[in-house]
Structure formats: structure tokens, C-alpha cells
């Protein structure tokens, strides 16, 4: 029964090998999510008038729900300079994902929309092909009103497009909706 002995040796050696060669099995290899976007900051500046819209979900998908913070209300009939920032705040220091988005500007685009009459957002930056990215914007308010502002980041959208996120294709990386007011 030579073959059976051989089998036994094979089995034992395989077990031994598997138990010692496997260096990363029992380690803590549960990575921190490198790609996770935990934070969206949209800062609107008009001189001393600074309004910050923030969404923070530090534990990612699942877990506790994310929180929205709006620092104040916007002034009617005013033009703000807008800048968006995406962070992964689970890392220390927080990773600025906006840099990646900018580097791959031709594969990304931000879309802004508001249901408040008179609020309009224009993208002021461009990717290498001359199409907007939307990291830098100007936001103009009209008359007073209450409603929402939605910011969407699409990965691989059709570029150029009609500036409507629903028609731009691609897949959604960020979709946040802030309750805002114009006074």
C-alpha cells in the first residue's frame, strides 16, 4: 500500500504548508477603505460671506447614517465662488480625493441642481478636452426661497453632455442633497 502512505504524506505536508506559508491569513488585513469618500464639503464664498455645506459619513456604507450640516443661509441676488472638496477622513491626515478627480478630469464631472427659483450654478474649470469638471463653480442666487441643492459626481459620464446628471450616463460616485435657504 505504498500509494496510501504517499497520500498520507501528501496530506500532512499540505496541511503543514498551508498552516505556515499563509502569512497574511490571521493578520489584521482588513484594510481601511482607501477609496472611501467620507466627506463632501462645498464652500461658497462671497467676500466675508462664507457658507459651507458638509456631508459626513465616517463609517461608510452601512453603519450610522451620514450627517448633513449647512453653516447658514445664502444671501439673495448674490454670486458666490464655489469650491468642492471630497475627503477620506478615515485616514490621518485625511486624503483629498478631489485631487484624483481633478487628475482624471476627463473621466469625471460634478453636476449641481437646485429646485429654488433663481439659483444657478456654473462650472468654471475645464478638463484637458475643454469640458467642465465642476470642482470650481460660481453659484448665483435670485430671490429668497427654501429648497434643496443636489451635488452629483459621475464617473465616466458622456462628455460633453446636457448638464443633467440623469442624462449623462456613467456611474454615480457621489450624490448628496442639502436643504438650503436663500434669504
Amino acid at each position, binding site marked *: *500500500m505504498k*500509494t*496510501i502512505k*504517499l*497520500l498520507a504524506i*501528501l*496530506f500532512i505536508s*499540505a*496541511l503543514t504548508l*498551508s498552516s505556515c506559508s*499563509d502569512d*497574511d*491569513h*490571521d*493578520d489584521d*488585513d*482588513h*484594510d*481601511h*477603505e*482607501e*477609496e472611501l469618500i467620507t466627506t*463632501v464639503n462645498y464652500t461658497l464664498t462671497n467676500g466675508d460671506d462664507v457658507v459651507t455645506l458638509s*456631508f459626513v*459619513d*465616517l*463609517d*461608510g*456604507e*452601512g*453603519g*450610522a*447614517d*451620514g450627517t448633513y450640516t449647512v453653516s447658514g443661509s445664502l444671501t439673495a441676488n448674490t454670486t458666490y465662488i464655489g469650491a468642492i472638496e471630497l475627503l477620506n477622513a*478615515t485616514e490621518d491626515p485625511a486624503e483629498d480625493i478631489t485631487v*484624483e*478627480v481633478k*487628475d*482624471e478630469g476627463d*473621466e469625471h464631472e460634478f*453636476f449641481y*441642481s437646485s*429646485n429654488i427659483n433663481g439659483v444657478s450654478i456654473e462650472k468654471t474649470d475645464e478638463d484637458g478636452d475643454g469640458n467642465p469638471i465642476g470642482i470650481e463653480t460660481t453659484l448665483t442666487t435670485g430671490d429668497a426661497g427654501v429648497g*434643496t441643492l*443636489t451635488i*452629483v459626481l*459621475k*464617473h*465616466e459620464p458622456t462628455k460633453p453632455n446636457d448638464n*443633467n446628471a*440623469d442624462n449623462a*450616463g*456613467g*456611474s*454615480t*460616485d*457621489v*450624490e*448628496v*442633497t442639502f436643504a438650503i435657504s436663500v434669504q
Partner: protein
Amino acid sequence: MIKLFCYCVIAICLTTNTMAQDCTFTLKGKITDFHNNTPIFGASVHIKNLNKYTSTNHKGEFQFKNLCKGELVIEVQHIACETKNLTITINQNLYKEILLEHHLEELNEVVVKTNFKTEATSIEQSIKKNVLEEYSDKSLGDALKNVSGVSSLNTGNTIVKPMIHGLHSSRLLIINNNVRMFDQEWGDEHAPNIDINANNSIEVIKGANTLKYGSDAIGGMILIKPKKYAIKDSLFGSTLVSFNSNGLGGNINSEIVKTYESGFYGKIQMNYKQFGDFKAPDYYLTNSGTISKNASFRFGYNSFEKGFDAYYSYVDNEFAILQSSHIGNVNDLVNAINSQEPRVIEDFSYDITFPKQSILHHLGKIEAYKRFKGFGKLTVQYDFQINRRKEFDLRRGDLSNTPVIDLRLFTNSLQTDLQIDYSDNLKINTGILARYQQNDAVAGTGTSPLIPDYDKYDFGTYIIGNYDINESTKVSAGVRYDFSRIDAQKEYNVTDWRETYNYDELFPEFETGDVDGTDIPTNPNFSYHNISTSLGLAKQFDNNLSLLVNYGLASRVPNPSELFSDGLHHSAARIEIGLLTMEKETANKFAISLEKNSDDFGFSVSPYFKHIRNYIQLIPVGITTTIRGAFPVWQYNQINAQIFGVDLDVNKKINSKFDYKGSLSLLRGNNISDDIPLIHMPATNFSNRISYTNNALNNLKISLTHKSVLQQKRYPDYNFYTFNAIAQEDVFVDISSTPPAYSLFNLNTSAVFKAFNKGSLELEFNIENLFDVSYREHLNRLRYFADELGRNFNFKIKIKY
């Protein structure tokens, strides 16, 4: 009457006698049955070079007198035995004990062709090599759809999971060369890593005797079998090349086999397959190609008394996943469902970009057997498998080439099987299994692993008895016990652990005591004891009619995805959540089959009924809000389920040239806990095939196949509404409604040419989806995004040498 084969083996005992004179030697002998040592009466013994005959008496003895010194070429024959020749040299009086083997079940061990079922009392259907060759450039799941009652769960057209009676994944046992496949089979989009070209036949066991392989064959079993080679000196092989217009690709497969009269044999097989983007009737399916590289090696030694078989197979698959199926949130899904066309349509390309899967699977085994005189046969097998699965998604920046799922599953098993068959009527099979499995969620993906690290230990033992009550009636009964233990390491989100699922109260023993920021490391472990049984009866009537009745009790331990899944499954575009509270599934299965086997007219009618307690299903439960917006959440839950249906097969010889074959499958699956239909059940489908064969004209075969799949009208309604912030309105997410019925026609033609002295050349030309029908199949997970394949012209060249 079943055709009988027999194989006879001689064991030699020499007694010495000092007398030595020419032509005075005596050859005496006794012929007995190998299994039970009973003498065999009436066996003929023929010395061919002297043309002397004799036969054995009732004690199994024979005698030749006055033999001269020299070589004797002896042929031993007995009814129902294959003729066996042996050569002995005589230079003194000899006494030989000759053992004959005439047990039918043993024959498929060493005899090349067999039409016996694996288990006499099981309900099974098989696919032979020549049919498998038709599918050389497709997948195992595609080939299996030939069998009534078998459908498939697809992700696109290259990732095909077989489904028996509506059940798939870890409810099916897939046994490849006597090795149970472990390849992260839990996922809907995980196709079995099997190269169908490496094998000789596939058997689908829908009801019964699966206990030898495991307790959890709730759906059934797929048995993939290699060929057994004749014991003779031979060298042969084949090469098969195929080309397809759809996908502009094909397959090349080559194999070569060397056998020796000593019983040794060896085989090498290699296969390469590549396709670019496939085409639906109206557009290209951008990023749907595949590359597959496979090889297998086998060598072994075969004799009646002992032998071994060593096998290694390597499968390397890269599957592109339709680019349009990558969605970011539920609004993207709604857009995809409402749009008639995929969102990305580009020109044809061989590029495989993201999303995609790349899977490596190594399988090795060594099996050895030894037969014991008057007792039975002992087989010992060790096998290992390493499965490395990488799933790539569309990612940003430096991470774009990093997989989101990277899992390595290492499985190794040691099993024994003892077949006690010295009695003519009763055969007993018993054995034990020990298995150790380790899953490693490989670090570096930059995501939380969907499936955690775990170790799994299995121990099983079984005993199965097959008893022939009389010539026409056989019964089998078996029982199996399994112990399984899963020991995992997983980090849970603290909020989920404590609040969402209340695990801190349900499973405080799993906590390790630390909390790491928002995560809590845990060490879940579970142990399970399973008992399963099977009972089968086969009754043979006149007119080739047979009746099979089966009952089985099967239990399945929840798989790691059902327990631990937690997070975004990118390639499935949904958040999947497993629960630690899952209990094992228990199924009671009844099946009956009435069959008539005949070339002129044959049929089988096989009704079945399954009741599954604690049936684990993954269903949409709503949406969750993430930074990407709303996301569909699918959660595992447990209900009681009933599945019943009937499979029908008919074959009829119309005349000497025309044959008809038809099949029909009807199935109903009910979630009896909620009194609604079960999700993802195959719809009623039927097929018809008319074949024309002309042997006089180069074996010309022309066949036209029709297949219809009706609309699945019985589906659970898990549709919901979600708020679209851009459009500022609630939108309807119709993820449940099923696509309409469709009918497809295929045309197959083939002819065989005698191209060389030894061997043949076969040419085949086929058209699939003859009328270029646009359709969607509800068991394709990508049905929201694109149509199925359009027309395909397929050309094959098979050379046998």
C-alpha cells in the same frame, strides 16, 4: 436485457515440482469468483497455440495433461465475461488459481464504454463527449441546459451558473473527477471553474444517491467524469478548433492520450479560448469578452486489483463584465431599466476592461484503490484546490488596477471509500471524509472584504446499501453524518453590530474585546451537525420500461456569504447583507421517474417535490442612503419553501433518417412563509429537435433545434419607489418584473471525413439564434442593462488521430 461486460484478472500461484520431461507436464487450475471465492462452473479454457479446449467442473477446476515444455497462450471465457488472454511458460507441472470478475458495477472502472447509470436507483441524465464537443467554446452551464430541468443563472453570457430545479450555487454539488469543487461558489455571478473540454461525460443527478459526496445536495448533483482507458498499447488524440462570428473568437483544444498494456496511462490536454465583445442583434455588448486558458494532466495505473490516478487541472479565466452594468446608485439602475439600450455602446474590441473577473483555479488529486479478494474495494483519495478570485471594478486613480474583491480559497480533503461487494445482491459503500478549508481575504484591495477570513473544518461519514431484491427490482438506502465548523475573523461596523443587528446581545461571545475606531473585531464561530438520508427504488418492467422512486433528506450549512456578507458587492451593484442568525437549511425531496429507454421511442416523465425548511434567499429589502445616494440593499433571509415540477423528455425515431427529441420543464417555487412565489425561479420552457442523419453520406447530420422560454409570471414583487433628487420626484424601481417569452432556433450540421489512415476529420457548421431575435432572460442578472446575444455562425473542425 442490459448488455453485460466483464473483465477477468488472473492471479498466479506456482507450485514447484522437480520432474522435468518433455510433453508430460500437467496444467491444473481452479477458476473462482474474485469477490466471494465461489467456484465458477462452465468457464471455457482454451490453449490457443495447441488448440486444446476444456471447461471447468462444478468445483471450478480444469486440467490439461501431456503438455510439452514451452509457452502456452491461454484464453479464458465465461458467460458475461470479457475474454481474457494470458501467456504462461510451462517447464514443470503447474497449478493455477484463476480469479474471474463478473460484477457489473466494477466495469466502468476499466471498460471504455458503458451505458450504466452511476447509481441504479437515482434519477439522472447524462451528456456524452460528442455533445460536450458541441459546447467546446461555451461553458459548463451552457452544456447542461441540454438536460431537462436544468437552467442557468447568468451574468452576461460568459458567466453561467447551472441551476437544477431552480436551485443553484451551494445547493448543487459539482463533482469534478471525484473532487468536490470549491470555488467561492456562493455568488450568483461565480461560474464553476471547469473546462468542459477536459472531461468525457457529465451526469446530472436530480434525485437520490448523492450521499457519497456530501449531505447538502438540495438541488442535485453534477458529476463530471473522465474517461477510463482500455488496457492496451495505444496513442491517440484529438484537436478541435472552433470559430464564432459573434464575439469573433473561438476555441482550440488538443489532447493526447498514451496507454500501455501494463495498465499505465497518461493524458495531456490544453485549451485556449478567446472572445471579443459579443453582439446583441442591435448593438455590441461593450466589454463582454473572455479569455480562458486551461490545461489538465493525468496519469495513472489501472488494473483490476489495484491502481492509482493522479490528476491536475489548471483553469485561468478572465471574464469581462458588461460595462453598462456598472452602476453607482439606484437612480443609475432606474435609468438602466427604463432605457432600451445599454448606456455604453462602442465598436467591437477584444479589450477586457473594468469591470471584470479574473479567476485561477488549481485542482489536484491522487486516488488509489485496492481490491481485496472475497471482500471489496478500498479507495483513498487526497485532493486540494486553490481558488483565487479577483473582481475588478471601475475605480479611480492608483486603485484602478486593484481588485475590489480578492479572495483565496484553499481546500484540501482526504477521503476513503470502501465498497463491500462480495455478495451478489448486496453492496455496501462506506467511507469517511476529512476536509480543511481556509479562506483568505487578501489584503491590499482597499475595501472591506465582502467575505472574511475563515477556517472551515468538515468531517463526514456515510454508509449506503444497494440491494437487488430480484432481477428487476433494486433498492438503495443510505445515511450520512456531517460535522462542520466555521471559525471566522471579521470586523463589524460598531453601529451595525450593536444597533442594526443587535449582535452584541445575540452573540456577545464573538466579541474580542477591542473596538478599533468605528470597527469592532469579532471572531464568529459556528458548529453544525447534519444527518442526511436517501432511499431509492428502481423497478424494471417489460418493454424497457422502468420506474424510479426516490426520497432524500438533505441539510445544508449556511455558506460564508449567507452568514458574513456585509457591504457593497460591486459586480452585483448592490449592498449584500448576510446574517449571523442563519440556521441550516433542511430539505425533504421526493422524485419519481417513469422511463422508457429505446431508440425507436423513449420517454421519461419525472415529477418532483421539494420542501425546504429555512430556505435561505437573498432578496431586495429596500435602499440605504450612502454618499453615492440611495443604494439597493439585498439581505439574506430564511423562509420555508416548496418547489415542485415535472421534467419530460421524449425521443422518437420517425424513420431511418429522421429523429425527434423533445423536452419540457415545468416548475413552481413557492415561499410558503409569505405565501408568494420564490424569487429567481426558471420559467416553463420546452425544446424540440429534429435531426436528419445519413450515414452513407459522410455521416451527415443536420438538426434544427427550437427552444422556447415562456415569461415567468410568478415572481415576488420587490419593486419600490426612490426619490430622485435631480428630477425632484419619486421614481419607481422595477427590479422584479420579468421579460417576455422568447423562442430561439439553432441549426447544426456536421459531416465526418476519412482524412487519414487512422483517424477522422469532422466538420461542423452551426447557426445559433438563427433569426437574430432580440430577447432578455429573466435569470440573467444583467437583463436590466442589455439584450442577449444575437445570431452566431459557428464553424468547427475536429481531427481525431
